Each structure stands twice: as C-alpha cells, then as structure tokens.
C-alpha cells in the first residue's frame, strides 16, 4: 500500500508553539515596561503590583493581540480562498479591490451619516453598523469582480479589473469626502490608516462572532475547493456544485474581509502573502491542511507585524499598514523572481 498523504502533525505543533510564543512577546511589548512575571500574574489571579499594569494588559494589549490574531487569520484565509477560486496566484482581498469595497461601505456610513440623519447616525457609529456596511461593500465589489472573472479568464485582466474597482471606490470616497465635515473626514482618515488597537471587548465580540460564522462556511467548502484545483470542468465532473461553492466562497470572503476591514481598516498584503508563505512551508495544495495552516500562519505574521509597529521601547506606534506592506511586498517580489512560476 502506498502512503496516501503526509502527516503534518509536527509542523502544526511547531506552528502553534510559535504562535503562543509570539503572542506572549506581543503582549509583553509596549511603551510601558511590564516584567514577564507580572504579566503571567495578571492573567492567573489578577494580583499585580500596579493596578495600571493590569489595566494596560487587560484593556489595551490583550484586546489588541486578539484582534491581530483574528485579522491575520481572516485576511489570510480570504486570500487563500480567492487564489483558489480565481485560479490566480496573485489574488487577495486587497489586490482585488475587496478591501476597497469594504472601505466604501464604511465611508458611506461615516461620511454620509449627515445625509441619513437621526436614527441612522446612531446606527452608523455602532460596531454592528460598521461591520455590516463593510461586509456589504466587500460583497458587492467581490461579486462584480467574480462576474467579470466568469467572462474574462485571463489572470492579468482580472487583477486589472480588481484594480479598477479599487480606483472606482476610491473616487466615490473622494466625492463623499468633499461634501463631509472636517470632523467626519478626520474620523474616516484615522480609520483608513488601519489599526489593531482601540477595540473594546464588545467590538471584539462582534468581530469574533462574524469571524466564526465566516470560518464555518470555509470548513464546508474545503472538499469542493480541492476539486476546483483541477479546474471547474473537472470539479463538475466529480459531482461538485460549482455555483454553490462559488457563492459560499464569496459569502465567507466578504464576511471575513468586511468585518476585519470595518474594525481595523484596510490592511494590505497579508491576504496575498501569507497563503504563499504557508504553501512554501507545507508544500501542498490540499485545503484540509492549508486552511488551518494559513489561519495559524496569518495570526503569527500579524502578531509579528504588530510587535514591530509598536517600536519596542518607544512610545510611538507606526501605522500597521506600513509594516504589512513593508513585509508583504518584498515577499511577493521575491516569490515571483525566485520561482517565476508561483503556485497556489
């Protein structure tokens, strides 16, 4: 009997270990120095030397680290799904304009709040409002790109179409910005820089709930995604309902990208780069392995990016987008140059 599929248990254990380590490093870093021992104490029985340390940990660093994990996992999984669905190694939520779609949703909500008036304005600033608006925006752009992709098979054309949708939404946003008050504009601008901090526990709960819903859909399309690796025609011939798979992929990607963008702003390159790094590490295309692997790797990379963004020992924090681009763009260039043929 031949060996069917490799076991990746050890690699997974190592990855989880790394995730835990980075998580601890991440919450131990910040403008205020907190000794490691106190850090553990804060989580065990709450008996910490200084009350301020506990407050920093529980109300600032821990929520931020959890946000980083959800954002990293969710965006990376979105990227993985798009790369398989579009049969395109360069697809990702940011490149295909999905993040822009989510931005548009939020922009309409923040900048257009004055047009909607009273009750809507209240909804506009609630966390659910942001999440729903961003998901709808993401879904609309993603569906439009998908419709175009059914007509246009060419890899490059699809990327350019995604880019055009990005420009379109950007122009709509500038028109909205033109008619907005300085206050609203500032609010939108800060949001668009991208940030993992400043989320309340309530907002994290919203983020988590939608993340779990999105990931549940993903688990149910693992099998059909594998047959899509051979192309749509083969997938159909193996009994796969391609339309249903495509719709489920669209919904889960929109939910994940939408809710993440709503709370942390448009974050670049994570969705594109992490799946490639994971595929390099695991050397497989099997989604049963890739989905958990990409989720864990995404969390690790996002935590690392966030740790760097805090500029350890300094009181400044860099915009998270600057770090992810700094990390992601060279990786993509390196992959393209090194392998010439990148697989997905």
């Amino acid at each position, binding site marked *: *009997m*031949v*060996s*069917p*599929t490799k076991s990746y248990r050890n690699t997974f254990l190592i990855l989880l270990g790394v995730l835990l380590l980075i998580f601890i490093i991440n919450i131990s870093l910040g403008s205020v120095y907190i000794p490691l021992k106190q850090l553990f104490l804060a989580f065990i029985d709450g008996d910490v030397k200084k009350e301020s340390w506990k407050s920093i940990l529980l109300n600032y660093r821990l929520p931020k680290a959890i946000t980083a994990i959800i954002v990293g996992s969710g965006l990376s999984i979105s990227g993985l799904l798009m790369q398989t669905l579009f*049969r395109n*190694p360069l697809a990702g939520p940011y490149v295909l304009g999905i993040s822009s779609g989510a931005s548009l949703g939020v922009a309409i909500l923040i900048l257009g709040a004055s047009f909607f008036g009273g009750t809507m304005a209240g909804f506009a600033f609630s966390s659910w409002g942001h999440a729903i608006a961003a998901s709808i925006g993401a879904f609309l752009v993603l569906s439009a790109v998908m419709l175009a992709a059914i007509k246009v098979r060419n890899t490059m054309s699809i990327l350019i179409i995604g880019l055009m949708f990005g420009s379109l939404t950007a122009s709509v946003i500038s028109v909205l910005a033109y008619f907005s008050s300085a206050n609203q504009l500032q609010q939108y601008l800060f949001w668009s820089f991208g940030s993992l901090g400043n989320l309340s526990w309530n907002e994290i709960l919203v983020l988590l709930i939608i993340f779990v819903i999105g990931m549940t859909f993903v*688990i*149910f399309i*693992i*099998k059909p995604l*594998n*047959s899509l*690796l*051979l*192309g749509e*025609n*083969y997938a*159909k*011939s*193996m*009994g*796969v*309902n391609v339309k249903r798979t495509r719709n489920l992929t669209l919904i889960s990607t929109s939910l994940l990208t939408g809710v993440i963008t709503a709370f942390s702003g448009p974050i670049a390159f994570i969705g594109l780069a992490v799946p490639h790094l994971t*595929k390099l590490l695991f*050397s*497989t*295309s*099997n989604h*049963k392995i890739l989905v958990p692997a990409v989720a864990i790797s995404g969390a690790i990379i996002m935590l690392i990016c966030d740790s760097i963004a805090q500029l350890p020992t300094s009181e400044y924090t860099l915009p998270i987008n600057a770090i992810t681009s700094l990390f992601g763009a060279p990786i993509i260039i390196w992959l393209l140059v090194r392998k010439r*043929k*990148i*697989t*997905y």
Partner: protein
Amino acid sequence: MDLNNQHIIKTSKLSIGYTSKKKVNTIAKNLNIELGKGKLICLLGKNGIGKSTLLRTLTKVQPALSGEIFINNTNLKSLNNVELAKSLSLVLTEHLPESNLSVYELVALGRQPYTNWVGNLSETDLKFIDTAFEQTNTKHLINAKYYELSDGQLQKVLIARALAQNTGIIILDEPTAHLDIHHTIETFALLKKLAKDFHKTIIVSTHEVNLALQLADILWLMTPSNFMADTTENLIENDSLYHLFESDLISFNKTLKQFTLSNSY
C-alpha cells in the same frame, strides 16, 4: 427491456447544438446511439464539426436541443451531479491550473463523489486509488508533483484519476493532442486494455484516424450532413469512411484500411 439493460449509453432522437438569443444552431440531429459495456469508441471528424459539442451534451455540460439521453437506463436529466459522477468520468484536454498537487493527491481527487463532506479517504477509497495506479502502470510517480511529469505521464495520471472515480463510462477529449507517436500509441493501447480487460466503456474524440481504425470497436463518424455509428468493419465495408474528409488531399484506401495522401496531391 432485457435488451435495453445492456445499453450503458442510449440516445433517442437526440439533437445537439447551441441556442443563443432566439437563434438555434443545430450541429447534428436525430442521433440514435446504443452502446454496450466494454467497448472502445473513437469519435472522428474534422475540426469544428461538433465532436466536443456531442461530448459536452453526453456529459451534461450543455443541454440537448431535443431528444433523450439514457445513462445505465436512467434519463440524464434526472441524474444529479454526484450520481452522474459515479457513472461517468472525464479526461479533458484543457491545461490544469497551477497548484502544488502531488500525483497521489490528484488521482485521489477522483474519489470525491464517494468521500464524506470533508473528503476523508476510506479503506475502499484507498483500494480504488491503488488499483487505478496499477491499471495505468503509474505507481512509481505517486510522490511527484503533477507539474514535474512529462505530457505522456500526465495523460496516464489523468486517466488513473478517471479510473479511481470507478465509473462504467470514461470520456476523453483528444487525449493525445500533445503527445508524440510513441506516447499516442501507448495511450491508445492503455485505453484498449481498459475496455477489454476491465469492461469500461471508453469514448475518445481523436484525430488519430489510422490508429482509431486499428483499435476501435466502434467508430462514430461526424460529417457536416451525417452522423454514423457502427463497427469499423461495417463502416469500411459500406464505404462510409470516404466521406469523413471531403478533401482532395486525403483519401481512404480500402485495401490498406488506412487514410493516405491522395494521388492528386
């Protein structure tokens, strides 16, 4: 009914073609095909004559204009995707999208109609995969990535995938289009073996007319005016092959049982 039971594929008054905005483009009509088990069928015809359209219609990729198709005595329309995938598998010409799939994983995908919701392979699945590798003589390739294979090896692996799907019918669309003469003959020999020894019904669209004349049990000839399905001997006997290519350049030589360059050339 007893006679019907032996028909793995049967069509009655089948018309194939395209409908586009009110306009109906019929490619062939009134096709009455009856196919038994364990036959190698070669579908011959000029480029653009509609071979792919016929195969696409038989595999439910596109709808028939009119008439009925029966697979194992069940109307094709009433079969769902998974049921169809258990009676009919495909080998296509199109390039596979880039991926990291190993040969084993690729062949194992053939088990998808049978596996559970997450795609776990059972003992039975493993057995069918193993048999597929044995039948195609590709066991030594299992650990390779599919993109490392030569065209000839890849074709065999794709056939192995179809075999793992464990269907009575395998349909191949120009499987030897990219192959040299050695691998072309090897592929056809494999298909002949699968039909003869393992009772698969194998339908191949091909341009290898001379090879088809020697190996096929049944030929399907498509010409602009006509569709003929019969054994090779009968078609040679009643001079049907003369009409396959209506050209001054090529003609059928009845004594050699081969197509040859015309004297006028």
